């Protein structure tokens, strides 16, 4: 308890106020120190951070390169369209409800929702994903009028890939789709991450995939000042994008169209090659599909339809289907015999209609046999017995070593898809192959009896149509082999300079020209007086060919009753050809799955293709199956 006098009181107050003043000064000093630290010492750091905040690099996606055929017909192009996109992370509350509300303004169908859901599952949620593509001008106007109701949704102008001919050449063009993790790996592998900022589509198959990094182009960048909401306020600097390089193909679109149509509703493949360059003129795998379906993300029902169809439209039969070559193998067998000195052209054998080996009897297709047969006749009439014997005389490894030179059983290295994975190897049987292929020792051994049917292109033989086409092109070219390729030139978007992407050092097979001439002559005979004669009757040019029929099922001497057999167990029809015989400009291989005999189903297709290519004749209907032709050959 204390009494106070006013003076003492005032003194105390002054004291206290002085202390408070000191505290004020101390605190202000503290603030000053803090400001000094932030604004002087750390200024550079915070300045950078402020700039980082302010400036955003916005990628400008380049125009994807065009794909043109050899005559400049556009097979893949781009068009600009409006899309309505949603950034899921910016949607407050329920995404479904937001889309429901959107549907009151812009038409959103069930398939749009499904596709969006699929994209959502695949994406990181800060991406902007399309809910609708190709909006009409009216829809755009309506959305913009209601935009305030839809935060996190926006209209964007995007370039879309378009394949103007629809379901045409799909297996060679391929398609693009949204970038996925696998694509990102490929981008990282090419160290192209920076260039792919802003790109959301990527080549998935075919040329689109193989030439992705040519077609993509160089992404441009815009330095924009952005506000805290990420909205661009103004542009500070701009580096223009450079469009992707255009691809000019060796393919002739019209020829491709005729070849596709020639199949009608049948399944199969056709590969036509320019023998002097290896350039592919047509590459057909039917049935086809429409690559446009994939561009915006394919709908579930379309996808299921394509994948569950028994006709397997998604399989590229030209590269991934491996089939026994049947009798189309015989010309090469003959050439092997000549080269290895096992037969002379005029040497005659007797064909009783069968060939006995051990306890087995190998039958000739012609009952009673062909009688006396020389090499020419063996090819023209497709005599099996001649080749049973020849195969036995050559032995499996001689056959394999010779055939390897024509590319049988090896990937061609065609510029489609990702090299090495888009093509099947097929099977070129040999002792070594069998050792590797089978596990059990008794299966690993090659039996001499197994060689016999190899001679007529059956047995373990299995090649892709592109291998067959490559081989016949090499034969037409007198043993000079070019790697088959689809792209003739890549046009540099920056310089306009055209360059050939696939270096094509040809490989010459060591065979005598006189031997080649024997075989070539026989193949001309096939189309003149042999198994191909009906299909090529009245052609205004001289062509060379060979029919073939590949057994899907082994009948072991049974009578062939193709009419009664289930459609999928019928033989595959094959035909190889080149023309004109003297100076070949086109070589091709045709395969018709379960088409029956080569002369019956495959040769007429080849005729239509050659007629167009050499004479400009445009057929008005698919190649008819020649039912009468089947009696003549296997």
């Amino acid at each position, binding site marked *: *308890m204390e009494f106070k006098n006013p003076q003492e009181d005032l003194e105390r107050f002054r004291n206290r106020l002085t202390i408070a003043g000191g505290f004020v000064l101390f605190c202000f000093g503290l603030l000053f120190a803090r400001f000094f630290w932030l*604004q*002087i010492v750390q200024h550079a750091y*915070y300045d950078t*951070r402020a*700039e980082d905040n302010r400036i955003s690099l916005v990628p400008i996606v380049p125009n994807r390169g065009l794909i043109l055929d050899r005559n400049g017909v556009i097979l893949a192009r781009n068009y600009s369209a409006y899309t309505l996109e949603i950034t899921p992370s910016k949607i407050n509350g329920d995404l479904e409800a937001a889309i429901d509300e959107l549907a009151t303004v812009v038409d959103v169908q069930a398939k749009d929702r499904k596709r969006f859901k699929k994209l959502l599952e695949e994406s990181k949620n800060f991406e902007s994903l399309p809910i609708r593509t190709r909006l009409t001008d009216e829809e755009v106007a309506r959305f913009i009028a209601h935009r305030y109701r839809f935060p996190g949704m926006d209209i964007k102008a995007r370039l879309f890939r378009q394949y103007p001919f629809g379901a045409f050449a799909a297996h060679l063009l391929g398609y693009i789709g949204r970038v996925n993790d696998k694509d990102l790996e490929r981008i990282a592998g090419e160290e192209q991450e920076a260039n792919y900022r802003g790109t959301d589509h990527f080549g998935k198959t075919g040329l689109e995939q193989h030439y992705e990094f040519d077609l993509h182009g160089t992404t441009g960048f815009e330095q924009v000042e952005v506000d805290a909401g990420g909205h661009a306020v103004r542009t500070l600097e701009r580096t223009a994008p450079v469009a992707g390089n255009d691809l000019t193909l060796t393919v002739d679109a019209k020829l491709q169209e005729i070849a596709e149509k020639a199949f009608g509703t049948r399944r199969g493949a056709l590969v036509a090659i320019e023998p002097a360059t290896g350039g592919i003129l047509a590459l057909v795998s039917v049935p086809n599909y429409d690559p446009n379906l994939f561009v915006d993300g394919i709908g579930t029902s379309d996808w299921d339809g394509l994948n569950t169809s028994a006709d397997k439209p998604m399989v590229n039969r030209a590269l991934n289907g491996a089939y026994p070559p049947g009798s189309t193998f015989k010309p090469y067998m003959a050439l092997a015999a000549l080269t290895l000195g096992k037969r002379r052209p005029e040497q005659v054998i007797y064909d009783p209609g069968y060939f006995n080996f051990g306890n087995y009897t190998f039958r000739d297709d012609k009952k009673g046999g062909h009688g006396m047969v020389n090499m020419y006749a063996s090819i023209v009439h497709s005599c099996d017995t001649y080749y049973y014997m020849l195969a036995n005389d050559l032995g499996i490894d001689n056959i394999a070593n010779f055939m390897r030179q024509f590319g049988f059983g090896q990937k061609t290295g065609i510029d489609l898809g990702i090299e090495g994975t888009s093509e099947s190897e097929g099977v070129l049987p040999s002792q070594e192959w069998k050792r590797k292929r089978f596990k059990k020792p008794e299966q690993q051994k090659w039996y001499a009896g197994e060689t016999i049917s190899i001679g007529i292109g059956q047995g373990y033989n299995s090649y892709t149509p592109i291998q067959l086409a490559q081989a016949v092109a090499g034969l037409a070219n007198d043993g000079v082999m070019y790697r088959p390729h689809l792209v003739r030139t890549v046009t540099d978007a920056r310089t306009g300079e055209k360059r050939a992407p696939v270096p094509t050092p040809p490989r010459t097979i060591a065979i005598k020209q006189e031997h080649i001439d024997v075989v070539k002559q026989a193949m001309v005979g096939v189309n003149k007086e042999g198994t191909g004669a009906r299909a090529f009757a009245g052609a205004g040019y001289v062509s060379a060919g060979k029919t073939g029929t590949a057994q899907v099922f082994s009948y072991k001497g049974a009578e062939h009753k193709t009419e009664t057999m289930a459609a999928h167990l019928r033989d595959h029809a094959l035909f190889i050809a080149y023309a004109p015989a003297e100076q070949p400009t086109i070589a091709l291989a045709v395969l018709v799955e379960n088409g029956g005999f080569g002369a019956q189903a495959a040769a007429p297709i080849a005729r239509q293709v050659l007629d167009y290519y050499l004479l400009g004749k445009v057929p008005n209907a698919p190649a008819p199956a020649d039912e009468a032709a089947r009696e003549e050959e296997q």
Partner: protein
Amino acid sequence: MNPDWHPRVLLYRLLAPIDLPLLMLSGLLVLTALAMVASASPERIGNQLLNIGVALLVMRIVAQVPPQRLMHLALPIFAGGVLLLVGVALFGDVTKGARRWLNLGFMRIQPSEMMKIAMPLMLAWYFQRHEALLRLRDYAVATLILLVPTALIARQPDLGTAILVLAAGFYVIFLAGLPWKIIVGMLGAAAAGAPLVWGMLHDYQRARIVTLLDPEKDPLGKGFHIIQSTIAIGSGGIIGKGWGQGTQAQLEFIPERHTDFIFSVFSEEFGLLGNMLLLGLYAMLIARGMMIAVNAATLFSRLLAGAITLIFFTYAFVNMGMVSGILPVVGVPLPFISYGGTALVTLFVGIGILMSIHRHRMLVQK
């Protein structure tokens, strides 16, 4: 013409209660406010002019009221304030999770705001009454007077206002001569009770403290405000980016940039030099207030003037401290500069009281 109505007489009467240094200092601050609002939120400039007009009018009216009158009003104002706070707790409107407003039917009021003045008024009155003989019991009563409304405000919750009210009251008690041993004891108790207080804090209040300690932990969430305002200040450098040129402010990286975070806009655009000028202005205002306090005629006036002056300091320090990242984010505006009418009126009521005290410094107590 009646001499009373002569313009010079009128002008004299109008200006007589006004203290020129205080008017000039607060005037400079208010002009700064206008400049900042024009930069950060130009569409509000008209409103802010109106706020300033009202605040100056209120200041002039308050300046007219002699301290003696204020003393008589202290108890009713305080009691009314506490009643209204209780009313808020019982019937208040909830906005943004806090119960701060009371709807009187014809208007909505925020009673906690008037407590910033009512509290020092009440305590100054209390100590004046017990001037002759100050016993420990008086400090205890004073502490009770302080804690009841503070607790009511903290519960709303409104941490910023609670801190200001608590500080205002504490300044009176401190200036009245609270013995040092009690102060030291209280500090010790505060340190010991900190974990207890932590337990009583709301989640968002805890988050603010955690954010202060490590804002980068949650850069897009709770740390965003403080990181962005620190970047703004730091990037301002020595002379700043220039008025209206602050990218952090203009591109809306700074949240609440016209209210609580207006200082980071100022700091970004005017740099360290601007900050020093601003600190200088506050320091001068505080110095002037302290001078008035020292010269005041009565204990009541002294305590009130001293407390109000220190309130100005508290506003400024807490706001600049939180914006620059050395104090947790509590809702305290930058005095005289942040946009908003309520706080401005409260501040000018304080200025008015100081002016009144100064004008009546020579008058002897009745």
